[in-house]
């Protein structure tokens, strides 16, 4: 309101800040997801690239529009919408119809994030809200998988549409009770490298783990959730495998199949919707693991990762509430306050 002589800035301490910023975090996550995206483009070619592009652009546009609608500052430069768009794309099968992707973007950004007030305020992982919404609304389109075909290996692009994913085959085996050995379905190397049908991001475990380690090194995710989550799925999977080796696949199959690696490294570790303290994250990872195995082996849907993470997102506020770390110099409250408080 007045012309400023060169006045000094007065603010509360501390006066040094970490060079880190939300924008930097978001673009680092995008970089961490890049290997998986590139591998999917390598395997599914144009179908994957167009899904990624449309989903990212869709999410950014929807966020900008909704920000204007809700009279909020448009902050698409911080890359949050790009991350969500990329994650949503990695959750969709290659070659998904364009209208489905746009609806997915609308639900992901609209219902998943902006309705709660924008970045950092949502309670469910937006990309997963979008994916589960699409899975339940358009079951057919969401489960038509394209056969992967190495990009430059020549020959017509096979449009074998409905080749089932390894998990899909396992689910049919369990439902029809036809025991076929879990790992006979596809060889390990294919599953690890991503040469198997499935959603864009779910195939190549190596690329995902690479991205995950990069994030871990940068410190934007901690080991707690991925390790407990994947560990729990492996252990439970193995136990069920011992109970009935013919029907239930081995732990390695569980880890490499479906969206577990993508879910554990990028979805479950989403800062906004996962618990803050180490202890809470371990409970979170354990919960996700148990629910994933239950749904995979006994549930109706072949893939339980998305539902597991959403359910644990719902439980996060309660986990945070009961895993408050003991503070320095903790003095237990005097007895009668304790009793009074418990009314």
């Amino acid at each position, binding site marked *: *309101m*007045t012309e*400023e002589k060169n*006045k*000094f*800035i*007065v*603010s*509360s301490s501390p006066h040094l800040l970490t060079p880190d910023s939300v924008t930097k975090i978001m673009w680092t996550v995008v970089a961490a997801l890049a290997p998986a995206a590139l591998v999917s483009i390598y395997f599914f070619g144009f179908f994957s690239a167009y899904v990624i592009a449309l989903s990212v652009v869709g999410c950014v546009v929807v966020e900008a529009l909704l920000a204007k609608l809700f009279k909020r500052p448009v902050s698409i430069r911080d890359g949050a919408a790009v991350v969500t768009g990329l994650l949503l794309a990695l959750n969709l099968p290659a070659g998904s119809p364009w209208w489905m992707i746009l609806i997915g973007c609308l639900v992901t950004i609209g219902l998943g994030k902006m309705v709660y007030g924008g970045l950092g305020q949502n309670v469910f992982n937006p990309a997963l809200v979008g994916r589960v919404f699409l899975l339940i609304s358009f079951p057919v389109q969401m489960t038509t998988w394209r056969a992967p075909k190495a990009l430059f290996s020549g020959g017509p692009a096979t449009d074998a549409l409905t080749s089932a994913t390894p998990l899909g085959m396992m689910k049919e085996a369990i439902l029809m009770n036809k025991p076929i050995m879990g790992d006979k379905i596809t060889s390990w190397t294919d599953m690890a490298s991503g040469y198997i049908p499935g959603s864009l991001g779910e195939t190549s475990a190596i690329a995902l783990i690479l991205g995950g380690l990069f994030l871990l090194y940068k410190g934007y995710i901690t080991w707690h959730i991925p390790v407990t989550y994947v560990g729990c799925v492996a252990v439970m999977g193995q136990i069920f495998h011992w109970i009935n080796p013919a029907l239930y696949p081995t732990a390695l199959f569980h880890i490499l199949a479906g969206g577990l690696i993508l879910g554990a490294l990028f979805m479950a570790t989403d800062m906004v919707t996962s618990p803050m303290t180490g202890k809470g994250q371990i409970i979170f990872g354990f919960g996700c693991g148990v629910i994933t195995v239950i749904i995979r082996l006994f549930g109706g849907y072949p893939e339980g990762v998305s539902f597991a993470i959403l359910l644990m997102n719902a439980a996060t506020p309660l986990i945070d509430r009961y895993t408050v770390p003991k503070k320095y110099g903790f003095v237990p409250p005097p007895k009668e306050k304790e009793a009074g408080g418990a009314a």
Partner: protein
Amino acid sequence: MLTAVLILSLLGLISAVGLGVASRVFYVEIDPLVEKLTEVLPGANCGGCGYAGCAGFAAALAAKEVGINDCSVADSDTKQTLARLLGVELTETAKEVAVVHCKFDPSKMQNRFEYKGVSSCKAANMLGGQLDCSYGCLGFGDCVKACNFNAIVIKDGLAEVIPEKCTSCGMCVEACPRNLIQIHSLAQKVLVLCSNKDKAKAVSSVCKIGCIACNKCVKACPVEAISMVNQIAVIDDEKCIACGACARECPTNCIFDFGETHYVAQINDKCTGCTLCALKCPAGAISGDKKQMHVVDPKKCVRCRICYDICNFESIELVNEEGKIMIPPRPKKQRKKKKDSGEAA
């Protein structure tokens, strides 16, 4: 059909007996007043008063934890009955309004430093406050956030109350870290809008509309309503007759007169010399002996209109500097019987 009636009545009987016994065992002393209050309350269970339902609010009301006005839904006659039930008389006090005691000129007020941080007056005040004047309104709107009736707005850096919307609930008074907001009755038109307690030199160096405690207003006030409290003029609302003399006298015009414009009184030829106006004039500006034409001394007149309201012979009119009659004399009031005349005066 008979079996149906039989079953139902039997079941009804069993439940009734069971509940009768249970209500004895689990008897809880309920204050009858709370019951009555709950009936009177609108029963919307809206939770506006912060209680889960009207029963909760009624209990709090009976326990004197809350006031009648805390129930925003209740209309005036509900409040009347509530007051009667509680034995508390609902004081229909005159409408009161919050006033911000700071009115610097935004284009002139300088900043001591560029404040960066949480945009709240408390936060800025903790770091000394960015304004040159260390008592002035910081304009971050803590009062606006505290007001549930959005009766206070920030206009180019300065808090301003909207009298119509203000319910004088006092939330803004607590919210302001520099205690600039006070509650005055709406009728109080003349207000000192400055809170700077520094000495004259310090005040004038930061704000041209600051009270420099020159005491001119104290001298100018015909009814001694103004006193100087640690370097700031303070107007006693009861004594003040809103004549605006102080406002005109103040060199830095930090005393604001929101009443309508004031004019000097002038006596015309209809004057019967009843000496009532001379008696009532606080400034002693009217002279003249009994039964003779009275004269107003324009320099002494403090334009408080007391003589204008009192004169019942249409002989006092209000004129501006050039003597043009701005407000004609008050029409004669039909005098009631002698007994009531005291009242009319």
